[in-house]
């Protein structure tokens, strides 16, 4: 995958192109071997994951993509700022790439950092069509490292994407093997008492919701750079070196909690944009997000990169070692996560006080293992504030208070929160948004339908934005699942309450029962996709087209199509 730079002569002829790289990618049927199973899939240049595409900021790239499949394909450059017709979403950016055809993407690289690319056609991405992008900045980076590795995660499943979607539609709990059992009932009884446990089960049964509904898709093998836990991808280092690890979560459905026992991690970049360094023991990476961390192993020993899925149904594992073949201990998976009533609080018409006579005190007892020794009578009348102490005493403003999903570091140390992310170098002037658009994240787990404002993509009008405005998006998660919302083409400035230092992202994770705000400077004309990045949620309808009207490149013909499409905002 070496770029074929154009000759100096050519760059003299075309002085506008300071730097230009030409790259070739083929889209191929490949075999994917996870160590647990071998599966036919889709890859790039004969492998899944595809190659690491290395670009340089300021370069104009030409990427020739040849479709060797017998079906349509596409490549979306996830997180890259580019003309909309190069964004690679069939039906929105372009028609797609037909079998046997070569499509040439051509766009200037206007940013630096860690990104990735993947097919936006059907379920080709879960089937293996993804790769990493590393862009070298023009200037100096505000942190030092001696060595770098891409650490690209995925949740490879033995079933094809089409099959998974069909199974989820047929039986939404098809893949859920962490459901509450008779055994768990009795262990809850011994912990919380019979009546509390019965009331808890009745309250959830009344809603027809499962506390165990954290991961729709279990039974995967977690891969790092295409290697399963047994195959153990290994990155070499010399003791004393600083290593930059570029974590990319290319999973179809799985959030990972990542730690490297024995090493502190300094988070320096999120979604390709530098952040003010934060030292953490562990962090959660949402689907489609990237985090760059720097580690500084001083000892001549191996370290395990351990990535546990959020619901604890699986893991990915890799190793950093001074020599090939060295290994460190692999931790055990922690107990499966359980949702609490707090995670349901976004659902319309849910009044906790009235729910089967439960009060919050009861709920908390049921959700918190850590409080089993407490006298129950003291817990009556607990307020929301203390509920946040639910699991292990941690709280995070980006989770519902008392949520069962609040992550804690395995070593009891610091777990990264969105609230810790502050932009290193804000891209935009901080200004008042010109308007707010509310997007309720909605769905019905029993029917496996997912939507925005209760409307699936198939029935939805596009969201219309005007070039030059700054829109404040208000996400209200009314479901019990976490949704990583990804707006194409324009940055998502996540409101962590840091005003001009709010971090700049491309994917914003919205936890159940929470409201999250992000702002977008509408600076990219054209039409863009905006969707939940969980593959099967997007396919089930949690997806929108965004049309940016006006701007320097608008023409009359554009408005004709717009008139035909209608619009909702």
């Amino acid at each position, binding site marked *: 995958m070496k770029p074929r730079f154009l000759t100096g002569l050519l760059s003299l002829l*075309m002085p*506008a192109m300071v730097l230009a790289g030409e790259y070739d990618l083929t889209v191929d049927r490949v075999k994917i071997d996870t160590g647990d199973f071998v599966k036919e899939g889709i890859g790039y240049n004969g492998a899944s994951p595809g190659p690491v595409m290395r670009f340089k900021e300021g370069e104009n790239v030409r990427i020739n993509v040849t479709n060797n499949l017998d079906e349509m394909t596409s490549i979306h450059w996830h997180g890259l700022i580019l*003309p909309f*017709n*190069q964004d690679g979403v*069939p*039906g*929105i*950016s*372009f*028609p*797609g*790439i037909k079998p046997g*055809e070569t*499509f*040439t*993407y051509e766009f200037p690289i206007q940013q630096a950092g860690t990104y990735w690319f993947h097919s936006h056609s*059907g379920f080709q991405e879960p089937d293996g069509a993804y790769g990493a992008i590393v862009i070298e900045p023009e200037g100096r980076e505000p942190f030092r490292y001696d060595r770098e590795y891409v650490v690209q995660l995925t949740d490879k499943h033995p079933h094809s994407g089409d099959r998974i*979607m*069909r*199974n989820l*539609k*047929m*039986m939404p709990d*098809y893949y859920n*093997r*962490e*459901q*509450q*059992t*008779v*055994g768990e009932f009795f262990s809850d009884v011994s912990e919380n008492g019979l009546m509390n446990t019965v009331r808890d089960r*009745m309250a959830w*049964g*009344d809603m*027809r919701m499962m506390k165990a509904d954290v991961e729709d898709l279990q*039974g995967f093998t977690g891969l790092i750079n295409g290697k399963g836990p047994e195959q153990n991808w290994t990155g070499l280092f010399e003791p004393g070196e600083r290593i930059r690890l570029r974590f990319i979560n290319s999973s179809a459905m799985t959030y990972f909690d990542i730690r490297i026992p024995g090493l502190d991690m300094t988070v320096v970049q999120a979604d390709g944009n530098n952040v003010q360094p934060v030292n953490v023991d562990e962090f959660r990476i949402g689907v489609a997000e990237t985090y760059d961390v720097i580690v500084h192993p001083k000892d001549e020993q191996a370290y395990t990169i351990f990535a546990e899925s959020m619901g604890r149904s699986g893991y990915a594992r890799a190793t950093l070692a001074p020599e090939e073949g060295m290994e460190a201990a692999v931790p055990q998976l922690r107990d499966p996560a359980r949702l609490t009533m707090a995670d349901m609080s976004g659902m319309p018409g849910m009044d906790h006080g009235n729910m089967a006579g439960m009060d919050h005190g009861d709920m908390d007892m049921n959700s918190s293992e850590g409080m089993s020794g407490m006298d129950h009578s003291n817990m009556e009348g607990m307020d929301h504030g203390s509920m946040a102490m639910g699991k292990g005493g941690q709280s995070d403003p980006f989770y519902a208070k008392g949520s069962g999903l609040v992550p804690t570091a395995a070593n009891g140390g610091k777990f990264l929160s969105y609230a810790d992310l502050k932009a290193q170098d804000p891209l935009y002037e901080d200004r008042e948004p010109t308007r707010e658009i509310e997007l309720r994240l909605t769905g*019905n787990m*029993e*029917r496996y*339908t997912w939507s925005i404002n209760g409307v699936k*993509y*198939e029935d939805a009008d596009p969201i219309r934005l005007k070039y030059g405005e700054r829109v404040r998006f208000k996400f209200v998660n009314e479901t019990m699942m976490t949704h990583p919302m990804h707006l194409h083409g324009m940055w998502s400035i996540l409101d962590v309450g840091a005003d001009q230092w709010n971090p700049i992202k491309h994917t914003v994770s919205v936890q159940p029962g929470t409201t999250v705000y992000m702002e977008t400077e509408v600076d990219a*004309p*054209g*039409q863009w996709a905006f969707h939940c990045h969980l593959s099967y949620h997007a*396919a*089930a*309808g949690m*997806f929108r*087209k965004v049309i940016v009207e006006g701007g320097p*490149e608008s*023409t009359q*013909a*554009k408005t*004709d*199509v*717009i008139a*035909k*499409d209608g619009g909702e905002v």
Partner: protein
Amino acid sequence: MSCIRSIVAVSFLASIGVSTAVTAQEMISDTTARKQPLTTWGVQFEEFEYRYSDDDEELGVWNADAFYGTDDFKVRLLTTGEYEIEEQAYETLENQLVGQIPISKFFDAKAGVRFDTPEGPDRTYAVLGVAGLAPQWFEIDANLYVSKDGDTSAELDAEYELLFTNYWILSATLDATVAFSEDEEIGVGKGLVSTETGLRLSYDLIDRAFSPYVGVVHERKYGDTADLAKAEGGGTEDWFAVIGARIAF
């Protein structure tokens, strides 16, 4: 596609030279599958089993359905039958073809036709029903039948699954039929006709696609229906040991 490529070429040239007039032609409408309703299908055998009764009757029994459609409308074929192995005859054989639409968050309405073609007289019914998930995780399927001759009856199916583990599952089923008029020819009396209750312990061997089970089933006829059965010389109550598999694909 070549059109797109030429547009790209044009815009690239334009970005070097004249202006940044990126084009309008490529503001396309989404006609991809994503913009269409998701069509899906599935086949499930809730029961596919061999039954052996307390008076040595042997039956092959299935209870299955297949569907095809979207969130808004599905076509569903439901089939159930009991085959008397020794007599080589169908004790019951029911096939339903219904259309199904969602009517609430957890329930669908169904309407269609049912054909009964067992050993003995055939019947054709119109079907109206609701199916879905009731509070506390009871799977409910309730149907009203009207025969060509105007005989009406109702049937309630309920199922509850108890998870011993995430693979060992005990499912309890109840199927009760009530007739609002007598249909003597097929041995149905007015009132509560019959119940079938079952307990099956299954193990998910291959995903949820193949789950072998063992269980017990109790069948009982009531009231006038029981009297009609006795008059025919038949029994009114049966216990079965069953072995079979739940299948989904």
